[in-house]
């Protein structure tokens, strides 16, 4: 049975690393899904929500809900954007009788892509291989809002030839924090500096995570520090796209 799902690309993936969106489509199609990309989507409103700008957050949430609600399932290649829709949209409309049921309905069928592939579909990559050692960082929103921990590791374990090296402090925030990293750049730098050192100390070739914001922060710091560790969204490897350009290697 083919399951029709909608991909919410997220603004960061749309603009900074489209490969992640295509990797999500590829993995979902391999798992038997028919993937639609609704055209009315832009940004889920998380930056406004986390900045306290409730009006703009609500406006973007309404636009996103309207674009996504016709579909049976909504798949997001980001723990923090999926968390915004699943956990925070119903909070935004807690006092809005008209929008609350719509927000709750969309929230209930929104899934982070790796959690959907593993928890819901019970799918594993088949015939995907990559000869490399990777380390995995648990991005905070996915980990703590959505309980994403075992799913990416189970999926990555099915990639032939891929070894996973444990990262010391894998559940410690990388210091990205959305607008935090530009509001408090020196503090953010101190945090990501420690994270980059921990990543380097694993001896891994690749850094993987499930959120592009965190990945850009860590990869940008690793690059500035002269590290040779290359960074990918985990779904890229899971979809068999780990042999392409890493973050910062776009042609």
């Amino acid at each position, binding site marked *: 049975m083919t399951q029709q799902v909608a991909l919410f690309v997220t*603004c960061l*993936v*749309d*603009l*900074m*690393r*489209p*490969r992640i*969106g*295509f990797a999500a489509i590829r993995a979902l199609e391999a798992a038997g899904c028919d993937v639609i*990309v*609704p*055209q009315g989507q*832009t*940004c889920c*409103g998380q*930056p*406004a929500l*986390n*900045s*306290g*700008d*409730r009006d*703009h957050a609500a*406006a*973007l949430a309404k*636009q996103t809900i309207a674009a996504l609600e016709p579909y049976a399932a909504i798949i997001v290649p980001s723990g923090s954007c999926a968390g915004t829709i699943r956990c925070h949209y119903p909070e935004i409309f807690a006092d809005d009788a008209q929008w609350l049921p719509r927000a709750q309905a969309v929230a209930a069928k929104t899934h982070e892509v790796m959690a959907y592939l593993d928890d819901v579909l019970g799918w594993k990559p088949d015939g995907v291989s990559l000869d490399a050692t990777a380390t995995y960082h648990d991005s*905070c*929103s996915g980990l*703590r*809002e959505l309980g994403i921990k075992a799913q990416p590791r189970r999926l990555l374990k099915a990639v032939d030839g891929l070894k996973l090296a444990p990262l010391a402090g894998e*559940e*410690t*925030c990388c210091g*990205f*924090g*959305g*607008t*935090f*990293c*530009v*509001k*408090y*750049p*020196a*503090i*953010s*730098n101190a*945090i*990501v500096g420690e994270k980059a050192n921990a990543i380097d100390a694993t001896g891994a070739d690749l850094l993987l995570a499930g959120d592009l914001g965190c990945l*850009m*922060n860590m*990869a*940008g*710091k690793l*690059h*500035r520090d002269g590290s040779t560790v290359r960074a990918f969204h985990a779904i890229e490897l899971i979809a068999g796209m780990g042999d392409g350009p890493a973050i*910062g*290697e*776009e042609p």
Partner: protein
Amino acid sequence: MSGFDTRAAAALADSTLKTAVERTAGTAEAKRTLAVAAFPDFEAARTRAAAIKDHVIAHLGHYLEQFEANAIAAGAQVHWAATADEACRIVVDICRKANAKNVARSKSMLGEEIGLQHALAEAGIGRIETDLAEHIIQLADERPSHIIWPAMHKTREQVSALFKAKHRTPHEEDSIAAMAESARRELREQMLGADVGISGANFLIADTGAVCTVTNEGNAELSLVPPRVHIVTAGIEKIVPSMPHAVHMLRMLARSATGAALTQYTTFYTGPKRAHDRDGPEEMHIVLVDNGRTNMREEGLADMLRCIRCGACMNHCVVFRQIGGHAYGGTYPGPMGAVLTPALDGLAPNRDLVQACTLNGKCQEVCPVRIPLPTLLKGWREKSWREGLEPTSMRMGLGLWAWVARRPALYRLATGLALRAMRLLGRRGWIETLPLAGGWTRHRAMPRPAASSFMAQYRKERRP
């Protein structure tokens, strides 16, 4: 730069501070992890602890009246203070009536919050801090930087030098035991000579009228039992219904704070010395302090009144671990301080505290009473935004972004142009300096975006 930015920059440049914070917080984190793993169903225990506090906060008046009646029945005198100033006046008046020249104080964050040390100094009353870390702070003339380790910002090497400079007969050998002995020599005599002992309260037990303190040094007992008068200053949210509830909270407190099963000393003080007691104070006064707590309950911060001051949130906070406690500027640092300080001292001078957080959620994960600290911080951010306290650049930037993002066709056009401009700045996949994003590129490179957006590529390849 704001005051917070200046203090944070100074802290980041101080490698000794980083060493000091990392030693203590790192040890606490590791020991808490072990303690939680050894506890059968800590998650259920957290839920129960939160429920106990929620119940009490919802019925605060009932339990406070019960506590007052039982404390009076045990022979204590109960005072009510609506504000910090009123609380200080009550304490100073009691000291004066007792002709107190010197008071021995057992560490209390509520005492710090109400500025009791300044009130005593202004009244000309001598004060000796008996908690070892508070003693260090008093010698150095500084402020606490952590709610359970006030001298966390100092390394043992710095403390050794301080004792050698200030103690009358300091230690010679640089061991921790010798340093502790030096502090004991310095403090013990003064403690026994105090006229009044002042403490806070970790818990107030409603059905017995008892006050509970916990320490690891026994300094509370030695400060509070020998003097003629014992004064307790306690926030009204410290109440629990009965001893079994207090014991449950104690199990959560010690494990969350230090990873220990229980503190070395856990004492319940019920009234002053009775006729047949061999020692104890002649008078016991309990000052119940509101100082904004009732307002917090009414204004969406009731969850914060669950706080039992364990410090786990700051020990596990990536920001606190980098900048330490002094950078926060208030009595209470870290995540719980970032929520409390705007309530106590106003949002406008403290707007940085509610912003300087990555919202990673670790604090909430380790909180023994499940306080949703990130949610409360976001509540402050909304207020800050509504009241126009956020910088114009941020307001305009986000406003413009949201305006464009609500017009998908325009958004695709505008972001397409921005991407092309960004690509011009990149070399070999990376952008090393990016206009308007100096906060990012000062410390890290920005990956060069792909030639066109996902949406543009997708439309070219497939029909929706």
